[in-house]
């Protein structure tokens, strides 16, 4: 066991715990987005950042990946951290305003305006789908490809995957995917409400048995992906 101080509280934690696990164990709330119990922590969304250390040596780390150490001093809700989280949520919202999860976060953080060019990206690269596919389904059918502006999540070489179990877990965990939130267009970027998504591929595939209920154009049930076709 190690002893550390979170938000002024001296707490004891198992040495393999992360800051996030410790905080949650003691009932201290840290917001997360790309974190999910049962999946390995990724630390991509940066929303769970906390400030560690003191004075000029303090720095911000993601609590979901940072291991506890003896004597560590953690502030989960410092001014610096809260201000940074607001900008992070604004960045998420600007790229993917159609996500209900993100709109909810915006509402929670009081983000009421978006100062960046609004995009409509289908993915926020939180990696939940990649991890659930590999870690819970054992399929490893999808992964990150490329970097920078070309980053995407796809099957190897964009080909129909032999490994994919068609389980739909990827869509189940996705906070942003087109399927999850296809409501009418929000009045402005900051939405606040989202309508039920409409099934889209049922029209083209009358025999489809979709596990997702409100199925859509995820492509897992399509033999030739449209992109591949051209």
């Amino acid at each position, binding site marked *: 066991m190690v002893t550390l101080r979170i938000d002024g509280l001296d707490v004891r934690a198992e040495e393999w715990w992360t800051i996030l696990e410790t905080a949650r164990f003691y009932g201290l709330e840290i917001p997360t987005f790309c974190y999910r119990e049962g999946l390995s922590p*990724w*630390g*991509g*969304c*940066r*929303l769970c*950042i906390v400030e560690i250390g003191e004075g000029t040596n303090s*720095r*911000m*780390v*993601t609590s979901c*990946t*940072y*291991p506890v*150490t003896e004597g560590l001093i953690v502030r989960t809700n410092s001014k*610096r951290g809260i*201000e*940074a989280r607001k*900008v*992070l949520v604004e*960045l*998420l919202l*600007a*790229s993917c305003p159609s996500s209900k999860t993100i709109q909810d976060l915006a509402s929670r953080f009081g983000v009421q305006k978006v*100062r*960046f*060019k609004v995009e409509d990206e289908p993915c*926020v*690269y939180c*990696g939940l789908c990649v991890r659930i596919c590999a870690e819970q389904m054992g399929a490893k059918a999808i*992964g*990150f490809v*490329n*970097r*920078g*502006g070309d*980053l995407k999540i796809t099957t190897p070489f964009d080909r129909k995957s032999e490994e994919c179990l068609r389980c739909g877990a990827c869509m189940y965990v996705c906070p942003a995917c087109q399927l999850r939130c296809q409501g009418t267009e929000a009045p402005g970027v900051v939405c606040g409400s989202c309508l039920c998504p409409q099934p889209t591929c049922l029209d083209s595939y009358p025999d489809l048995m979709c596990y997702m209920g409100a199925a859509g154009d995820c492509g897992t049930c399509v033999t030739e992906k449209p992109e591949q076709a051209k």
Partner: protein
Amino acid sequence: MLSKVMMHRIVTPEHLEELREKLLRDRASKTTRISVCAGTGCNAAGSRGVGDALIEEIRTRGLDTSVELKETGCHGFCEQGPIVVIRPQAIFYRQVKPEDVTEIISETVLKGNIIERLLYVDPATNEKIVREPDIPFYKRQSRIVFGDNGEIDPAEVSDYITVNGYSALAQVLSHMSPHEVIAEIKRSGLRGRGGAGFPVGTKWGFCAKAKGEVKYVICNADEGDPGAYMDRSLLEGNPHRVLEGMIIGGYAIGASKGFIYVRDEYPLAVERCRLAIQRAREYGLLGDDILGRGFNFDVELAMGAGAFVCGEETALLASIEGQRGVPRQRPPFPAERGLWGRPTNINNVETWANVPVIVSRGADWYSETGTANSKGTKIFSLVGKINNTGLVEVPLGATLREIVFDIGGGIPRGRKFRAVQTGGPSGGCIPASLLDLPIDYESLQEAGSIMGSGGMIVMDEDTCMVDIARYYTAFLHDESCGKCLSCRKGIQRMDEILTDITEGRGKEGDIELLEELATVVKDTTLCGLGQTASNPVLASIRYFRDEYEEHIKRHYCRAGVCRTLAKSPCQNACPAGIDVPRYIWLIGQGRLDEALAVVREKVPFPAVLGYTCPHFCEAKCRRGQVDEPLAIRLLKRSAADNDNGLWRANSRVLPPSGKKVAVVGSGPAGLTAAYYLAKLGHEVTVFEASPVVGGMMRLGIPEYRLPREVLQREINEITRVGVEIRTSSEVRSLDDLSAQGYDAVFVGTGASRATDMGISGETGASVLHGVEFLMDVNLGRSVKVGKRVAVVGGGNVAMDAARTARRLGANEVTVIYRRTRAEMPASEEEVEEALREGVRILYLAAPVGITGVNGRLQVQCTWMKLGGIDASGRARPVPVEGSEFTEDFDTVIAAIGERPEVPDGYALSLGTGGGILVDPDTLATSREGVYAGGDAVTGPASVVEAIAAGRKAAVSIDRYLGGDGEIDEQLAPPEEERPVIVEEGERYRPPVDMLPLAKRFEGFAQAELGFDEARAVEEANRCLMCDLEES
């Protein structure tokens, strides 16, 4: 020679020594050693051809036994490649071509004669330098890591052995415990050269202590900063040195395996490393039981695919493991859990290359170099706007000034230094005010940059600092691995905002948003790439915020780089914004009248400018980078001299507005404001204190440069639109003007108060002030100068005074100037003409006192030398102690500057230099309805700047009076599409007719006669039409 030893493993340290002695003995039989630089830079310049020719020449002359040829790695002085050095004399030949080879062998090698044309010429002294160590570029470096590059063939391990190679390894394996090695490295103070500067010995210590049977060492050669190539050059030029460092590191840490992670787009480095590993294995320097001391160690190459992020150590580890190169959380640090979960120590190429010299020469020796916390040397790749492009190795703590100016030779083409970017895209720009900063890890960080791996990109006045920030941000956006939201989207958003600013879509608040976003990206991102990605943005805002504001508020890019804002460099450089490319093209078509109309769209004084403008446009002309800039001023003069009145057809005067405006001063600022205001329908009266109209155009500029009738013609155009000019009407108080019913006032009273020199004896009767002297002459007063005249100063007033004195009968005129010709503010052609008219110029001299002796003046002077760059971007003159000298003169004219003198009765707020304080955007003064511009605000400047101020004031005053401030007119026929003609080859200006010297001193006849029409057309057709270039 090689084949004899090749299959012989070196089995003991003693054996290594024997081999070294044997190699040195073999070499002693060669009387001459020639090294040809075969680094990538010289290779690109054609060194392979030179090398082949040398081999052939040596063979055919049968010199194999006495001459040894080495094709070496990079020597560092890439600007001068291909480089050939002949030892033992160390004769340095540069820019050698295969054709030179025969002569090099027959003259230099065989006869010992120097081939003058291949020598390096020091641009500072024009001296030819024979020996490599005497060249300033090398002389000021301490090349303890990089020095061997120029002497050894990187493909031969035996070459490395002759320069004491592997002796540090032998020493470590024979006499030192791993613990002692780490202690020695710690004591040396060596810090990581990859950028972060972590103490190397401490890092090794962590890894050595970590639990685990299997450990690794890794050489990080994933050099990816734009403009940085020191690691590549080390690997290409001296791979064994890096290997030796790694083996020593492996021994210290307890690792038996090492990796060199090198990017695939460094093919030569990859090949050299592969060969070095192979040779080291053959020699028993890698593998089992190295040097018979029981230590096993081997190295493998791991190839990177060129992702910038893989330079980050945890991403690098993932990449070697075969994963996608994505950084992960530290802790755990690689020293505990690194490659495949084993304790791993990662150091950069240059760090490893430092290790052997620390071991062999000792930590004490090593730590003598450097600063308190940053020991040793650092290799920088000096690139960008710098004369001596290349790799330089200097002690840490050297100043940027030493690197950029002493070693780098300063900025090409006399441009002003702007900033230097250290640390590549992860660093920041460092401005001229910090040139004396001693470079170490901490000082750079405090300045908002980082050491980084050692890229140093020099930027001059033609670099747009916003565009540079945008460039780096775009680079990092492409290179972000995409894991962290803050980095992936944050950098993308910064890139978008910066792109908007550079393309004229910047908004109020953008700078603050950039700062906020940059801080979050820096604070919340996992790895070094993202944490430092904000540096280019934050540093450029910190030091060049005014440039951001210019882009956003005024849609102006002073460097002329942002193509949306700056149509062409010439127009961008013109204070009045004249559409230069368009009128030049019209002149080229022989349509001089239409060209004049284009000029007239922006200025009411085309002829005055054509005769006298200091032509900021020509300094930026793109043709100047090919051969010679266009003679834009003379072309404008041709258009103005051929005025057929076409432009008047579309010139409009609006109906009376019922408003009255007073303009104080009839100089270019006042008359321009008056002209445009009158055209807008206002009733304008100009009050001029002197009896003549034109301000400095009439009183300051001598008649031989601007004939009176040329000026008068343009003044007539101004009165023609209804401007009333009252001469000999001094305005003492602005209250009087409001009492007379004027609704607005423009103050353009100029700057004609001469500055004193501040030396003894300057108040004597024979000591005149430049501007007063010129005014007296221009007013036709009787002015007497003696036969011997001294003019102090280096501006246009000084040149005018000197040439006027010549015309008044002085036969010996001496200009005394405290800097050199390069720093002289006077126009180039004025200096040329002054020299042609027999004016003597003493550069680097300054008067310190004047004594009157029997009606003559004895001027005591001192010689000066140039010190560091001051805030104005020019070198500061410093007196050379004990260098005083005295010269006799009859008259001394002090022309060292003027300042504005605004009457107290105006009750205007003034700045420190005595100029009127105005809002830079509107030229409004502290009094309502009163505007000011020209020299009265800025201090002495040029006619074209005064015209620009007059235009700006006219816009503001019209708006103040209820108008829309629209002063631009379409005077020329609509713009036509111009076909682009690409001209190959060099072509220079046609000659300009000048008045013969003999006739010049008879009076004040015009000296420069201008182009005739045919020459004007010929000259205009040299325009490259770079404004049509697709960006």
